[in-house]
Each structure stands twice: as structure tokens, then as C-alpha cells.
């Protein structure tokens, strides 16, 4: 596994300058995600309006992979319905765990496909999926 297959330009760009890394006023849902073994910690904030993700942002600390993954995820889910966003989260986690390999099925992950190679790096899988698990939990909570 070559490093440039993991640390691609897109991931570098999102980790150095995460567009969505800020506090979000009026969030309808705030949830913390944590990898206790490495100390990665993100707080995901979402505004759900009329069943759609109207806005989302995050704060916290973590490695390039977790930061880029979170930023790309927010790009992707903004404007999607809660159900669509949850489906994307499951799809992303399935991709990283290599449970979903069908390219056509993964197509709508769009830029998040750039993280697919992390599935070849077992030590970093949890960095990539942290935000998506947090999203899944956050959206499940809002439904209740």
C-alpha cells in the first residue's frame, strides 16, 4: 500500500483546510464521537429541518484521515434527507469494512470514495469511520 493512495491530494486538502470545522449555531442535534484508543474526538452538529440535513459542522481534534473524512461527509450529507444521510453512512462504513465492494452501489459516496483505500490499512479504519458512526447515532437519536 503506497502512502499516496491513502494521503491523496483531496484528503490532504480537506484535513489542512476543513471547510466545515466550526461551531454551528442553532444545531438541533449535537453528538460527540470518540476513539478512546487514539484520542480522536469530534463533535458533530446538525440542523435537521423538514426531515432534511439543512446544515452540519464539526469541531474537535484528530488525525488527517478522521478530519478529512468528517469534512467530506458533511459536504455529502448537506441537503440530503435524514434517511438518505443514514443510508450513505451505512454505505461508507460498509465500504471501509469491505462489506460493500460493488462500485455502482458505492457511486453516490462521491468524494468520500477517496477514502476507500483506508480499508487496506486496518490500523486506520476506525479513524475513517468515526464521523460516519457518529452521524448514524446522531440521526437515529433525532428520529426518536
Amino acid at each position, binding site marked *: *500500500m*503506497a*502512502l*499516496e493512495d*491513502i*494521503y491523496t*491530494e483531496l484528503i*490532504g*486538502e480537506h*484535513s*489542512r483546510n476543513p471547510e466545515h470545522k466550526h461551531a454551528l449555531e442553532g444545531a438541533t442535534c449535537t453528538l460527540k464521537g470518540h476513539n478512546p*484508543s*487514539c*484520542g*480522536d*474526538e469530534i463533535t458533530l452538529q446538525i440542523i435537521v429541518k423538514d426531515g432534511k440535513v439543512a446544515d452540519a459542522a464539526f469541531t474537535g*481534534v*484528530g*488525525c*488527517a*484521515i478522521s*478530519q478529512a473524512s468528517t469534512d467530506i461527509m458533511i459536504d455529502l450529507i448537506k441537503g440530503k434527507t435524514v434517511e438518505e444521510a443514514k443510508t450513505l453512512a451505512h454505505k461508507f462504513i460498509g465500504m471501509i469494512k469491505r462489506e460493500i465492494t460493488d462500485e455502482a452501489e458505492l457511486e453516490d459516496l462521491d468524494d468520500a470514495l477517496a477514502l476507500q483505500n483506508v480499508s487496506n*490499512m486496518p*490500523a*486506520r479504519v476506525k*479513524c475513517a469511520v468515526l464521523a460516519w458512526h457518529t452521524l448514524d447515532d446522531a440521526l437515529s437519536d433525532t428520529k426518536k
Partner: protein
Amino acid sequence: MADAIQKDFPLLHHTMNGKHIVYLDNGATTQKPDQVIRSICDYYGGCNANPHRGAYALSVEATEIYENARRRTAAFIKAKRPEEIIFTKNATEALNLVAYSYGFHNIKKGDEILITISEHHSNLVPWQAIAKHVGAKLQYIYLQEDGNLSEEDIKKKLTERTKLVAVTQVSNVLGLKNDLKPIIERAHKMGAVVVVDGSQSVAHMAVNVTELDCDFFAFSGHKMLSPMGIGVLYGRYEILDRMPPFLMGGDMIEYVQEQDTTFAELPAKFEAGTQNVGGAAGLTAAIDYLEKVSFDRVEEIEKELVDYALPKLKELPYVELIGCDSKRHNKTGIIAFNIKDVHPHDVASILDAEGVAIRAGHHCAQPLHRYLGLNASCRASFYLYNTKEDIDRWIEALKKVRGVLGFGA
């Protein structure tokens, strides 16, 4: 000399990601020499039986191997008698034994437990639990600017209210050796017992528990060339003798009635169930190996490596060293650092691709990282088989890190 030592460690001749491995995570666990690996094979291949039980030659032989390991360990750390050596599965279990069997019964509401902010979670979380359970107060010794323990805190917080002091001999993050003698003397004057975590010291320097005069001393075998699953608790005989058992079951009893049991003498009282005899055989072989090389030589090798690495690291403006401000007299072969703008996990992954193994994260010392204002750090830790070439490979790999993530040099 370095070649002669390297030759003994089969794993060091392997590759990682297509490159000859540079193993710099000795603070987490060390590699094992052929002599240790062979001793475990020899035990299981030629002497395996349940010790202390069978009235047949093989069991007697297994018992002898196990009890010999106890005698060798006692001599290794200069304990007065072999009964003061309790085998556990690691330092964590040894420290929990003290927390549960001593702490629970001797620390009362309103008493104080004193530990340091640089403790590994294994010498911190158990004391937190005991303090909460009995209603005692958990106090911390913080650090001076240079990373050493605050002498002011020691004076201020080690008082007659203190019933137990738990302190590491060497910090697993900062790599600084603590001056334990004055702490132990003061603790005894105040009527407190002292528990020393020797996990990061016992493989790297000569330890003398009698001279140190500590009450308990815990370490893991796997951090000193031995297999995983064998650890040691040293305890002062008079104290161990008064403590109730930790785990109950076979081999730790005298008479078992339907409603009552009397317990075996030391050390059997603290060794319930079938023990790790293969691990004990490995520990003996590791002690033999280390004594043959000598701790003077081990310390010399590690000092040479740190002296070689530090100036090279200081040349790199983006390397932030942690715990390296101290005068060099008490620095061991552990160097913690960060690379500007880059998370330690990314550093470790990039080094991994270059065949270099280091640790990244909080190294089981979250309170210390929080105290230092860090989220995480990288750690390189050296041992007797590391070479200057290893340091060169590590530093060359470090130079690539920022570029991979798209930062300028």
C-alpha cells in the same frame, strides 16, 4: 557488539511493508531473543506438567523450573527472600493485587492516596477506584518545568494523611527517571506505604528493591525480553503476609471446609490456579540474557542512542520534543515528540510505510497529556538491540511526514 545482540533477535531480521524493520516501540513491548524463545519451547517440549501437584518426576521438574524463576527474579531485583516474589500476568494485575488486597483493607475514609500525574493508567485507575470506594482523596504530584516531579508538591502533599504513595520509576511518556529514595523516605516517615511501577525501568537499569526500601514493586515480563502473560509483584514480606488473598481457588489454600477455608503461606496465597510456568521459564532466560549483557552496557547503549538522536531531532524545526528539557542525567531511552501540524497517528502511519515502528496516541497516560496540553504524542523508545542506523532511518522517515500531508518543510 550491536550486531552480536541483533543476531539473537529473529524478529529484527524481518521486514515491515517491504523494508527492514526498525523497531522503536520498546516501551510498549520488547522483542524476544532466541534464548528466551527456546526456553519456552524447551519447557513445553520437555518439561510440561502442572507444578505443585503431581507426585511424579515431570511435575517435580515443572515445579523446580517455576520456583527457580522465583529465586532468580528475587536475586535480579535484590529482594531479601523468594517468597516476596508473586507471579502475576503483568504489571497491571500486580498493581490491582495491591489495590484490592492492600488498598481496600488499609485505606479509610478521609485518608489520602498520592500518585503522580505521569502515571500509566495501570497505576492510576486502580487507585481512583479505591479512593472512590472507601471515600479517600486521590492527590497528584505535578511536574516542574523540566518534566521532573515537583519537589514542592512532594513536600506539600505527602503528609500524615497520606496512606499510600504510587509512583513510577520511569515515566513511559517523558522517559525521565524519578528520584524515588527521598519520596520513599518521606512516605515512611509519614506512615505511608510506597508502590513503585517498575514497568519502564526494570529492563533498562539495575533495580535494588532492598536499597530502594519500597514496599511494593511491579513489572511486566514482556517489556523485558520475556513472553507476554508473566508479570511480577514484589512485596515486603511482613506486609504481604498480613494481606488477604486477591484471587481464590486452587493451590492457594491450606484446608477447605464446606463453609471455611484457611489459606496457604506466601507466595502461594497470591497465586490461585495453574500458573504460567512457560512464561516463568522465559522470564528466567530473559534475566540470564540481561545479566550476561549487563545493565552498565544496556544503559550505555541507550544513552548513546539518545545522545545521537537528540541533536538530529533538534535540527528539524517542525519537531516538537516533549520531556527533553531536563538535564541529561535522568533521561532514559524514551523520546516523545510531535510533528508540527500533523497528528501523531498520521506520523505513525507514514513511518510504518518506511518500516519504522513507533507508538502514537496517549500511551495510556491521558491525564499526563491533558496536563501537558497535548491531545496525543508520538513516542520512540529504544532498547539494547537498536543501532545508530535505526535512528538514521527513523529521522529520514520523519523528514517525509509533512510533505506527504501537503505541508511545506
